[in-house]
């Protein structure tokens, strides 16, 4: 049984091919397929899950993700999400989902004012989503970040936490959430969240860059995120 991921491509996306490779090549033996969907399309076609990849859609004009959030294809994504379809936003894709209102909160300039590009560790909260089914609560994943606007803010972060919508938090390699492990000043060290229903997930770290031994210091912790979404996923 195969699972088909649609990877959206906006002008300025630059992790689209990486994400496509993860789901269409790296995980192909596990029954994963992927194809690119153009931002001007109005239909997603026959896909099982959607990935909004990282990059600088529309040059980050106005705010990161603000213009892409209103691309023609995003109406179809909103409809897909409303119907319970799995949607994963990575980095700029996370920003787009927030700007569209499919995820709560916003991502603003890093506290350091710098573009932060480095390995981070995130600890999983255990919230069950299509992209974390195969990941145990408390599991620590090593994935890289590369962003200038990744500081997550929310009007009531404690409520978000209580609602179980926090999926990933920046942590030490041992899984301890701490200010030192927080690369951008995100509230509660939030690296990834989901919507209330749990089918829409956004995160700043790049799982697609942590899928192959040849990349990123050899870590493959990102694979579990895509594997979770495969048909019958979560067995990993």
């Amino acid at each position, binding site marked *: 049984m195969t699972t088909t991921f649609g990877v959206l491509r906006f002008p300025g996306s630059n992790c689209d091919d990486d994400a496509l490779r993860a789901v269409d090549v790296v995980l192909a033996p596990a029954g994963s397929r992927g194809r690119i969907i153009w931002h001007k399309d109005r239909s997603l076609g026959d896909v099982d899950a959607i990935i909004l990849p990282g990059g600088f859609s529309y040059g980050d004009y106005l705010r990161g993700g603000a213009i892409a959030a*209103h691309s023609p294809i995003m109406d179809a994504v909103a409809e897909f999400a409303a119907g319970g379809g799995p949607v994963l936003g990575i980095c700029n894709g996370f920003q787009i989902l927030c700007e569209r209102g499919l995820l709560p909160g916003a991502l603003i300039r890093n506290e350091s004012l710098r573009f932060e590009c480095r390995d981070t560790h995130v600890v999983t909260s255990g919230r069950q989503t299509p992209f974390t089914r195969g990941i145990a609560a408390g599991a620590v994943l090593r994935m890289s970040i590369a962003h200038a606007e990744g500081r997550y*803010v929310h009007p009531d972060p404690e409520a978000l936490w209580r609602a179980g919508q926090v999926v990933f938090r920046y942590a030490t390699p041992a899984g301890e959430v701490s200010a030192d492990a927080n690369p951008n000043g995100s509230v509660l060290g939030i690296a990834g969240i989901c919507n209330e229903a749990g089918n829409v997930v956004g995160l700043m770290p790049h799982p697609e860059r942590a899928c192959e031994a040849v990349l990123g210091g050899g870590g493959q912790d990102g694979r579990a995120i895509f594997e979770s979404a495969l048909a019958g996923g979560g067995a990993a």
Partner: protein
Amino acid sequence: MKARVYVTLKAGVLDPQGQAAKHTLGRLGYGEVEGVRIGKYIELTMDETDPARAKERAAAMCEGLLANTVIEDYRVEIEPEDADGADGAASEG
């Protein structure tokens, strides 16, 4: 008709850009500066003659795209059409 839109970070949202500018102003000798908040100024040229309607539409544009109301506030001012257009005097939103 022209609309002037000011988009600013909400009070309480940390503005590291403003902090950096404040720091540098201090180094330049402007020690009296106690705070800097950086926002955006947007000018809309609209095919619209009714100031009230122009303001209403501009506010809707802010809600829909120009501002992210999770983190930003906005204010709309309508510029009078011409010197005689006292009716369209700048208004606050």
